[in-house]
């Protein structure tokens, strides 16, 4: 599959189910948990959607609509984490992880991006990524 690499200032959007959103005791969403970025067994890369693929006024909203139109079973109470390539890279390089950010369109999502070389079993790094690199969260209900 031919790949284009994403630029440092580009953003990627990741679907996050309710159980992996970080909440306070009153169920207010305050971010995402590190487990939102954990690979499932057998997954070779972290699956995301490239926002800058859409040359529109609302690339994040368009990326979310692309996710909704994909094979992912988007639940009403879910959210999306938005990460910046450069900030993800800083956190991962600090732990000697080299990530490749590849645009790999798929049949169900033309803006699909694969984050290859993703850490498999480093909970501390995943929590740091959730805190510092994927630092914006959008609720599914807030995007028409």
């Amino acid at each position, binding site marked *: 599959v031919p790949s284009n690499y994403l630029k440092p200032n580009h953003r990627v959007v990741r679907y996050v*189910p*309710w*159980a*992996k*959103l*970080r*909440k*306070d*005791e*009153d*169920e207010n969403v*305050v*971010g995402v*948990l*590190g*487990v939102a970025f*954990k690979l*499932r067994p057998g997954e070779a890369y972290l699956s995301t959607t490239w926002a800058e693929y859409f040359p529109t006024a609302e690339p994040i909203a368009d990326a979310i609509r692309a996710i909704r139109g994909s094979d992912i*079973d988007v*639940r*009403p*109470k*879910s959210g999306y984490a938005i990460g910046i390539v450069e900030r993800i890279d800083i956190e991962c390089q600090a732990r000697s992880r080299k990530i490749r950010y590849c645009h790999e369109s798929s049949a169900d999502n033309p803006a699909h991006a694969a984050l290859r070389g993703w850490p498999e079993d480093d*909970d*501390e790094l995943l*929590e*740091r990524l959730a*805190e510092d690199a994927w630092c914006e969260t959008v609720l599914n209900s807030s995007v028409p």
Partner: protein
Amino acid sequence: MSFSQSTQGVLPIDVTASNNALSSVGPLSKYLDDLRRSLQIATIANLSEPPVRIRTSGSTPGISATSSNSLRTKKSLPEELFDSLASFKIKTSTVAMYLEDSWRLGFFKQLDSLLGSESWDPEDALPAPDSFNTLLRMLLLLSPERRPGLGASGDGILIAAWTVGSDRLTIYCLPKDQVKWVLSCELEGARESAAGNSTLSNLREILSPYRPERWFRAKQLPQT
């Protein structure tokens, strides 16, 4: 009708009595009533999950031995979520005397939300009962005034997360009183982050250098 525990952990249900008790009301309906009652009792016994097998004895033409498992059909995801939720609430209720009513009701609300069919990702494994045991025991041991936010990993591990400003504590509740914790917080003017594995019995002591009361104290109401 009699019940006895065999030496092999099998609960035989003797239905010969029902054959002997065929009444004038109708032998077949009487037999079916007895059998239905037997199955209900066996199902209740099976909640504690020792292997239970129903064994018929005596001559009962046309009715063969069966197992309670074979009577079950595969449950839908909403049914499985409901069962998990019910079992977690029942377990919590057994320690209700240690929890304030408002705390417990808030916790139940969080469980309702976590395990709602509107919110659960069908790709994820349901939270493991062993993980919930650890979560509940941890909450009893730490006795936090502030409840954690609840989450779950894709492989059935429950997660307790406290967030106060930019200070974060995340605890993965593993089976058998084991926990994995990750934190980041301000300490002596510097940003600290740490992670580790622990048993529940050591957790409070391990967290103590990071002043965990910042997470566990009740939320301060804004002063007017």
